[in-house]
């Protein structure tokens, strides 16, 4: 009954007067068209409800992106301070407690508040309705609330800088018991605020995730099957499913740790003698927290990686004017990686003291997950093969992604193999690995994606010269930062060390390496300021973009106006006739055929049977 009600509202969103489709499930066509607005779009009437409390997913996406990037810049600055301390300890720039607080905030900000928020909240909100062919997200009001919850979460996190004791310095992994005992900075208010912020974040992202799932599953336009969706949507969609299933683990761990800290419960706290006195805890298990945290933590890295995979597939395909190679396998790989990601978490705990037999199991699952990931890499490079490659900025960043992700993914094979993890765990090898594979590769995709979709969002192009400088410094510079760092790990230099100081076996040249890495990091950091400047100035002064400047097929470029207006499609919803990868179709006049172009318009194109 309620379904019928639904259909009444959405009748207008289905293409009613198509002559050919009088058959199959077209009872909808027989229903009288509903009055406006279809799809329950909220039409704002004041400046506040248009630009601030907007319920339009495009605005919400931009809000998410700006907040995420702003927070990310803070995370970047923190990393400069950390690197300066490591390379020039003589300067006495930071106290150990401040150093560890920065390490923690840097990590949490970058992983959660920048990458997750940007990929899911930023790109997800902007691109999902457009690429699916709908007017907006399924629940626009809830979507709006989700952004404001995110903002509040960020503010709560930042407020921890200003409380007595400062922010938590427990490391982004927030392991108990040290997170709430006196040897760690911020063990009073700092950790509580961090946990509260995370709880708010999870609540907000559940609301957002709800929207992405329901919109992708139920609000696509006529003719848009799941297998006609661009890989960008697949990446973000599966990542959202992962988020909905994995964030609860973080929530649970966070709530229990909050109670341990505030009320003195012992969920994670065993008997402890801290700084000479017996604490009142007993019976809890620190390893339980680690299980909960990494059950969330490992899918989390795929929540960041899968959207990047999806987006880069589209960028490569569009800018090489060639269909993505092996689309079906790509979809299977995304789904497979997503599913498998729930079975590998304890590879973060090989040396945590859990039952050693688990090591066999998790090493096996971890190396299995390498297979679908490798397939994706093969398919990206096979898309380049026999393509027609434009070295535009999005393509440059995509190439940078392939190189850095390849490197980072391969070093993951070292760490996943349990016995190799024993000497390398908790050393700079791990730091180098996860920065390469989470920090550099997906961020290169973010840059490529912004250069690609900027014209859609603003109607103008980003400055290409600045972009090229930005690309080269970032790509080569980041590689120079993190590749040598692996070798520090081989020496055995542990991570989360404020200072190495006089160690009889660590050669002084390692300190030289530290200086090199820091200088490279500062240069790469400076290049990002160029990018920010480009972002801001091009919004007013950038070259005006023509419609569909990259000649792409996916629906987001086919709106009647660019940037798309409220409601995206004007009076008539689009109708989809093909998958998004009809590039260089033999016989076709142009080297691209947008998804909403009817077969009658391209009769000369001969699609190959596979």
């Amino acid at each position, binding site marked *: 009954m309620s379904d019928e009600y639904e259909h009444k509202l959405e009748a207008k969103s289905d293409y009613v007067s198509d002559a050919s489709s009088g058959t199959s499930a077209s009872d909808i066509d027989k229903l009288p068209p509903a009055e406006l607005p279809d799809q329950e779009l909220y039409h704002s009437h004041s400046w506040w409800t248009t630009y601030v409390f907007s319920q339009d997913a495009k605005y919400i996406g931009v809000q998410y992106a700006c907040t995420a990037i702003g927070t990310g810049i803070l995370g970047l600055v923190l990393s400069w301070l950390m690197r300066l301390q490591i390379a020039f300890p003589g300067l006495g720039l930071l106290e150990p407690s401040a150093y560890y607080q920065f390490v923690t905030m840097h990590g949490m900000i970058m992983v959660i508040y920048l990458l997750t928020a940007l990929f899911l909240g930023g790109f997800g909100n902007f691109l999902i309705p457009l690429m699916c062919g709908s007017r907006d997200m399924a629940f626009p009001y809830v979507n709006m609330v989700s952004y404001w919850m995110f903002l509040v979460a960020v503010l709560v996190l930042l407020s921890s800088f200003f409380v007595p004791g400062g922010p938590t310095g*427990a490391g982004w992994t927030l392991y108990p*018991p040290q997170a709430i005992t006196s*040897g*760690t*900075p911020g063990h009073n208010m700092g950790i509580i605020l961090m946990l509260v912020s995370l709880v708010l974040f999870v609540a907000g992202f559940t609301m957002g995730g709800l929207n992405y799932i329901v919109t992708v599953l139920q609000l696509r336009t006529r003719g848009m099957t799941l297998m006609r969706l661009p890989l960008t949507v697949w990446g973000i969609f599966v990542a959202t499913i992962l988020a909905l299933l994995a964030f609860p683990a973080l929530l649970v761990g966070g709530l229990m740790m909050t109670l341990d800290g505030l009320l003195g419960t012992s969920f994670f706290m065993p*008997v*402890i*003698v*801290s*700084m000479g006195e*017996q604490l009142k805890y*007993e019976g*809890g298990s620190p390893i339980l927290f680690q299980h909960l945290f990494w059950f969330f933590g490992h899918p989390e890295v795929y929540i960041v990686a899968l959207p990047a995979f999806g987006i880069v597939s589209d960028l490569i395909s569009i800018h*090489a*004017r*060639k269909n993505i190679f092996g689309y079906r*396998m790509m979809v299977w790989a995304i789904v497979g990686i997503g599913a498998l990601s729930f079975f590998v978490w304890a590879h973060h705990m090989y040396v*945590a*003291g859990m039952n050693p037999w688990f090591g066999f199991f998790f*090493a096996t699952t971890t190396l299995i997950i390498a*297979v679908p990931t*490798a*397939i994706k890499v093969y398919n990206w*490079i*096979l898309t380049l*093969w026999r*393509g*027609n*490659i*434009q*070295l535009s900025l999005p393509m440059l960043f995509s*190439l940078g992604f*392939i*190189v850095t992700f*390849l490197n980072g993914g*391969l070093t993951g*094979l070292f760490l996943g193999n*349990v*016995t*190799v993890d*024993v*000497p390398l765990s*908790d*050393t700079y090898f791990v730091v180098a690995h996860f920065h390469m594979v989470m920090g550099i590769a997906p961020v290169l995709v973010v840059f490529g994606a912004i250069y690609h979709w900027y014209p859609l969002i603003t109607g103008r192009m980003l400055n290409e010269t600045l972009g090229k400088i930005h690309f080269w410094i970032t790509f080569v510079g980041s*590689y120079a930062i993190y590749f*040598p760092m692996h070798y520090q790990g081989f*020496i*055995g230099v*542990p991570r*989360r060390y*404020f200072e*190495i100081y006089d*160690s*009889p*076996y660590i050669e002084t040249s390692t300190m030289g390496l530290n200086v090199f890495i820091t200088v490279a990091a500062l240069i790469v950091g400076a290049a990002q300021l160029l990018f920010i400047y480009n972002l801001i100035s091009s919004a007013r002064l950038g070259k005006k973009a023509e419609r569909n400047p990259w000649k792409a097929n996916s629906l987001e470029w086919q709106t009647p106006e660019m940037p798309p207006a409220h409601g995206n499609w004007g009076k008539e919803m689009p109708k989809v006739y093909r998958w998004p*990868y009809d590039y*260089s*179709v*033999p016989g076709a006049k142009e080297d691209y055929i947008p998804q909403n172009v009817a077969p009658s318009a391209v009769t000369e194109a001969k699609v*190959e049977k596979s």
Partner: protein
Amino acid sequence: MAVAIVILLIALGSIAFHFWSPWWWTPIASNWQGMDDTILLTFWITGFVFVAICAFVAYCVWKYRYQKNRIAEYKPEDKKLETRLILITTLGVIALLAPGLLVWNNYISVPDNAYKVEVVAYQWGWKFRLPGKDGVLGKTDIKLINDENPFGLNLEDSYGKDDLLVDEGELHLLLDRPVKFELRAIDVLHNFYVPQFRGKMDMVPGMITYYWITPTRIGEFEILCAEYCGTGHYAMRGLVIVDKEKEYNKWEAKQITFDKMFAKNKNNKNLQLAKNTK
């Protein structure tokens, strides 16, 4: 063109760096050569993949650079190629995993003739305990830790009376004899790591974790805590000295037993003053 060259340079440069940079692992001092060997095998396989794929990308970027009259190939799928690639990748993965799991099996199976040494970690230093003449370590409990009984030994357990307590963060080990480290922490997570020994394992309060090694080289090696444990994490250093039997026995003889230390603490005037029991 420039892009292709840079990608190639990155791949080749990485190889060059690997072979010619001065930064390589510390010379091994234990029996865990297997870990090093597995790492080398991984380097060969992943190194080959890295160079091959980078070279392929560089080639494509050069050969298929945009030309107005070029038409890209339209090929949605190639089942044969994809299947072959999956197969090769799976074989590669198995080639990495198999030796790795073998070595891991050795790592978690302590040989019967290994002698036990307890390592106690605290914020921020190291203490050790040897089983003494009876060869058995006495039971401990964190609840029992106090000023007189800093190791928290159970007074009712007779095995503990002759345990040797080493308080100064310097441990001696016997050359060529397998030793099992029983690892304890009394406050937060720590990790007993000596880079030259290659082994490591977290120490969790409330649990006893372990790993074992056989030192194969005389020398002095630094202990580095390898699990974040608060502001003093980086300063939590200690020393492990591998001795031949004679020197080891000399050192062992100098260590105090629990019995003696407990009695000394009971009579320690300063402690009594501090605890108001004088």
